[in-house]
């Protein structure tokens, strides 16, 4: 049977046997069985031999005697049996692992510092960003009905563009109530939050608050501290927040006490609620007054119709109702309810619900559709945090693998003594987890130390969530993840060393062992380039915006709100006194501040008007000296003047308005507006009165005859000392208006607020970018010193043979320079693409010049060279005798 295959016992029975037998026995037993099988085949034939074989195997299924470990000779033991030594051996092995880990850390203090420090900084940054994101995402969650609250928002089509307004007419709430009331638990109309004067006895305070319908406190789940939360049903009541109650009444019981709002409305305190947290949309609502009081005191019922979207409407949908469906249902509630004033229908109003969960992060609309908002920054910082953490992990992996070659002998010895791969893997993973844990402790310390600073820059009140199990859970997961990821490469790589080769000394790392390390360095620098260029461009955009020509002079310009009747009545006397001090060069009154002109009006008619135009134009009511006060630039025509009595029906347009209205010769054109006829007497250069990123909107200035003035504009004389001037203004203001609290705003501060958010983002991003570069350099420094150390002998020999320090420096630095260049080439197009799409969000935007990339590349190269050269030069300067004498 030479050509035939040798008869085999049934395969499955063999498997069964192998499965059944203790590993130490299978060899001899199987050998015996095979031998017998061969005999049986010769004696009885294959079939019978098979049956006999099966029978014999079944015999081994019976209970086998317990075998003592010592009985099994070591040479046949598979290694897996060796890994279950007695507990005592295990404990001492663990102690040994710890000992070796600590010895390694303390022997290489520099590396340990770089390793742990870098990882700790990375973790701290990620933790700060994590806390920041948590804070942003948990915005408004304080309110128990978070999932069911929404604001009613309207889309209106104006000149073909859909605009989204939060403001609503006061008629909307009742209209929804009567048609769709069963879908809602609460429908609450409120005013916009605003500063109001609260006065009791001799105490006068200005606090921000809101007028609200009675359902509001329950909807917002305000926590009662004293009194009742139902007080708003009484139109002469007020609810105070805890701090305001404390500020006004001290420790005495405020319930039932009287307060005067804005010097005209007397109300009684009926309740005190717990302060709302900072991360609530309603955080600045420090008191709540009844809606009915607002309506009756201003006599609004007769005055405002569907066209006046002056208020807000909040709803809480019923428990079993789907928010999206309700949103769809109320779409045409305004259209269907406008009976008089049908003029507003041309804006095609469509209502929808904007849920509370989206207020903070998805607050921007474009063409009636949500286009995100702050969520962009969540992504931005999330990505930066991940990047920084990845950089730190890369460092850790790089340094560990580099160092691992030093520990190859340890691995060899361990393997010879009986360690097997699993043990080594767990040893090295354990070591990196230990280091990660150290880093975590240091990171938490760092976060505790830097949190106040971070809060200041980010304008937040974040604290570490010491008691939150989620925080600790994520810290531990974070630590495990980092430790395992960072340790996996060295662990798997080291444990694969072949002991004989390592110990014989023929162990070579091989040409490609350093390749992954190089890839990681390239990745690191790609991220760094991205962060540097990104930060530079953000700052460039901010600077660009800051330098945008404003069209007016904001220096020394300030506004004082006129909140009381007396401040209107006594304005002229105040002006006379103030002008006599010579500390102010000009003053006027206006409806809006020049930095924030948001009032729009419609219904304008002029000759040659395009009938399709829907003419919502910004309007600013002013007094005569307004132009001089803000120092606007007249382009043609003239400023308002008291010399012409006809100026009370005169318009001054900005350039955008001239263009919008299509005037070739604007001067003398007649515009029908406000129920009268107005003549254009002048054109001013465009001024930035709204968003600093958007084009200037058409604006009309007119002499106010409708009692819409609400601000005093003052220009402090350039010769006067600002703080003295403020003191003087305050003194005179209070002299004429003793019942009005003095409050003022500088135009340049108001202006700065327009780019505050961008500036804050830029600042944070630059800090993180700096840290990222620092971490990268730390890693590079470690790596360079490792390479230099590894090549000590080579450098010694080269020196003996006559190499100069310069050529040695080149030798050591060249590799890193290449890596940086490759990273730069990869990063440039990616960075350009992302930043360009970021800039597209701004209508008024800067460009990305090539020199930014060039400068970044050069800067990075310089930093790299400095970092590497320190080690390279150090290595090149060593006396070759020292490096060559041993061995």
């Amino acid at each position, binding site marked *: 049977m030479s050509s035939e295959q040798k008869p085999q016992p049934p395969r499955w029975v063999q498997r069964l046997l192998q499965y059944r037998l203790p590993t130490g026995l299978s060899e001899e037993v199987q*050998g*015996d069985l095979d031998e*017998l099988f061969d005999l049986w085949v010769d004696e009885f034939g294959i079939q019978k031999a098979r049956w006999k074989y099966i029978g*014999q195997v079944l015999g081994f299924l019976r209970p086998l005697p317990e075998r003592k470990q010592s009985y099994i*000779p070591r040479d*046949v033991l598979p290694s897996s049996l060796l890994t279950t030594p007695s507990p005592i051996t295990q404990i001492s092995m663990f102690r040994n692992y710890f000992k070796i880990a600590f010895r390694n850390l303390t022997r290489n203090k520099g590396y340990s510092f770089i390793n742990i420090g870098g990882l700790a900084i990375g973790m701290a940054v990620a933790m700060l960003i994590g806390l920041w994101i948590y804070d942003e995402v948990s915005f408004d969650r304080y309110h128990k009905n978070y999932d069911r609250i929404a604001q009613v928002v309207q889309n209106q089509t104006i000149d073909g563009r859909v605009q989204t307004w939060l403001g609503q007419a006061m008629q909307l709430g009742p209209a929804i109530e009567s048609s769709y009331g069963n879908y809602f638990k609460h429908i609450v109309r409120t005013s916009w939050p605003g500063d109001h004067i609260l006065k009791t006895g001799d105490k006068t305070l200005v606090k921000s608050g809101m007028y609200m319908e009675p359902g509001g406190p329950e909807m917002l789940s305000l926590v009662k501290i004293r009194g009742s939360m139902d007080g708003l049903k009484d139109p002469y009541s007020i609810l105070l927040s805890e701090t305001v109650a404390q500020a006004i009444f001290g420790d005495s019981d405020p319930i039932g006490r009287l307060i005067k709002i804005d010097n005209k409305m007397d109300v009684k305190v009926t309740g005190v609620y717990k302060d709302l947290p900072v991360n609530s949309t309603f955080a600045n609502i420090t008191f709540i007054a009844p809606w009915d009081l607002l309506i009756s005191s201003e006599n609004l019922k007769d005055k405002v119709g569907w066209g006046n979207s002056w208020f807000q409407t909040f709803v809480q949908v019923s428990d079993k109702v789907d928010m999206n469906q309700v949103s769809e249902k109320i779409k045409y509630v305004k259209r269907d309810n406008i009976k008089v004033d049908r003029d507003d229908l041309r804006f095609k109003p469509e209502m929808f619900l904007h849920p509370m969960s989206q207020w903070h992060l998805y607050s921007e609309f474009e063409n009636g559709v949500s286009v995100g908002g702050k969520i962009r920054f969540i992504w931005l910082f999330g990505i930066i945090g991940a990047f920084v953490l990845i950089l730190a992990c890369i460092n850790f992996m790089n340094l560990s693998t580099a160092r691992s070659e030093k520990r190859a002998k340890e691995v060899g010895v361990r393997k010879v003594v009986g360690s097997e791969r699993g043990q080594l893997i767990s040893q090295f993973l354990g070591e990196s987890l230990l280091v990660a844990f150290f880093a975590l402790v240091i990171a938490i310390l760092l976060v505790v130390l830097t949190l106040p600073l971070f809060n200041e820059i980010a304008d937040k009140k974040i604290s570490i969530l010491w008691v939150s199990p989620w925080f600790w859970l994520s810290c531990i997961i974070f630590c495990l993840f980092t430790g395992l990821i960072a340790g996996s490469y060295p662990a798997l790589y080291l444990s694969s060393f072949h002991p004989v080769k390592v110990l014989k000394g023929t162990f070579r790392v091989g040409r490609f062992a350093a390749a992954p390390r190089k890839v990681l360095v390239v990745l690191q620098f790609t991220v760094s380039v991205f962060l540097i260029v990104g930060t530079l461009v953000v700052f460039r955009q901010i600077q660009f915006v800051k330098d945008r020509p404003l069209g007016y002079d904001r220096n020394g310009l300030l506004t004082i709100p006129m909140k009381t009747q007396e401040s209107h009545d006594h304005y002229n006397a105040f002006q006379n006194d103030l002008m006599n001090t010579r500390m102010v060069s000009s003053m006027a009154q206006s409806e809006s501040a020049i930095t924030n002109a948001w009032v729009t009006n419609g219904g304008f008619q002029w000759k040659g008007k395009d009938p399709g135009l829907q003419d919502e134009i910004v309007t600013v009511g002013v007094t005569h000296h307004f132009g001089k006060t803000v120092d606007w630039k007249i382009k043609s025509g003239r400023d308002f003047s008291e010399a012409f009595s006809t100026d009370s029906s005169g318009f001054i347009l900005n350039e955008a308005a001239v263009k919008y209205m299509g005037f070739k010769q604007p001067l003398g054109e007649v515009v029908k507006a406000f129920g009268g006829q107005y003549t254009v007497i002048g054109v001013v250069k465009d001024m930035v009165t709204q968003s600093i990123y958007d084009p200037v909107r058409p604006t009309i200035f007119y002499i106010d005859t409708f009692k819409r003035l609400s601000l005093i504009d003052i220009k402090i004389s350039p010769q006067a000392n600002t703080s003295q001037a403020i003191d003087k203004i305050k003194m005179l203001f209070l002299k004429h208006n003793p019942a009005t609290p003095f409050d003022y705003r500088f135009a340049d501060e108001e202006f700065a607020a327009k780019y505050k958010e961008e500036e804050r983002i830029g600042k944070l991003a630059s800090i993180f970018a700096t840290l990222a570069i620092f971490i990268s350099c730390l890693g590079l420094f470690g790596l360079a010193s490792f390479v230099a150390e590894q090549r000590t002998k080579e450098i010694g020999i080269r020196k003996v043979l006559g190499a100069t320090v310069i050529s040695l420096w080149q030798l050591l630095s060249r590799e890193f320079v290449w890596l940086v260049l490759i990273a730069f080439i990869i990063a440039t197009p990616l960075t350009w693409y992302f930043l360009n799409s970021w800039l597209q969000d701004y209508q008024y935007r800067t460009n990305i010049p090539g020199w930014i990339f060039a400068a970044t590349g050069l800067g990075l190269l310089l930093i790299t060279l400095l970092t590497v050269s320190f080690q390279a030069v150090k290595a090149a300067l060593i006396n070759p005798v020292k490096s060559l004498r041993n061995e």
Partner: protein
Amino acid sequence: MNRDYLGEFEELILLTVAFMDGAAYGAAIHQDIRQRTGRSVQLSAVHIALYRLEEKKLVTSEIGGATAQRGGRRKRFFTITHEGRHILSEIRQVREQLWQLIPKMI
């Protein structure tokens, strides 16, 4: 368990190990017993008996070199120990005495 006690089967195995003189291993013992006694024994019984004997220190074992016959698997060779010989001779003595006491049948 009394160290001196040996079952009939164990005795048989121990005797086989003794006469094979270092060349005893599972399959060989199994084959020998079958041929000698005509009994069909389970190989597992042979192995278990051998391990028990080894536990009682009556035999020792060592792993031999690999051979081509058994798919390269190595054999475990059993050798009788001094104690093993001792106990066998003790048993034999007892039997001899007993045989002496039986009245002659023929």
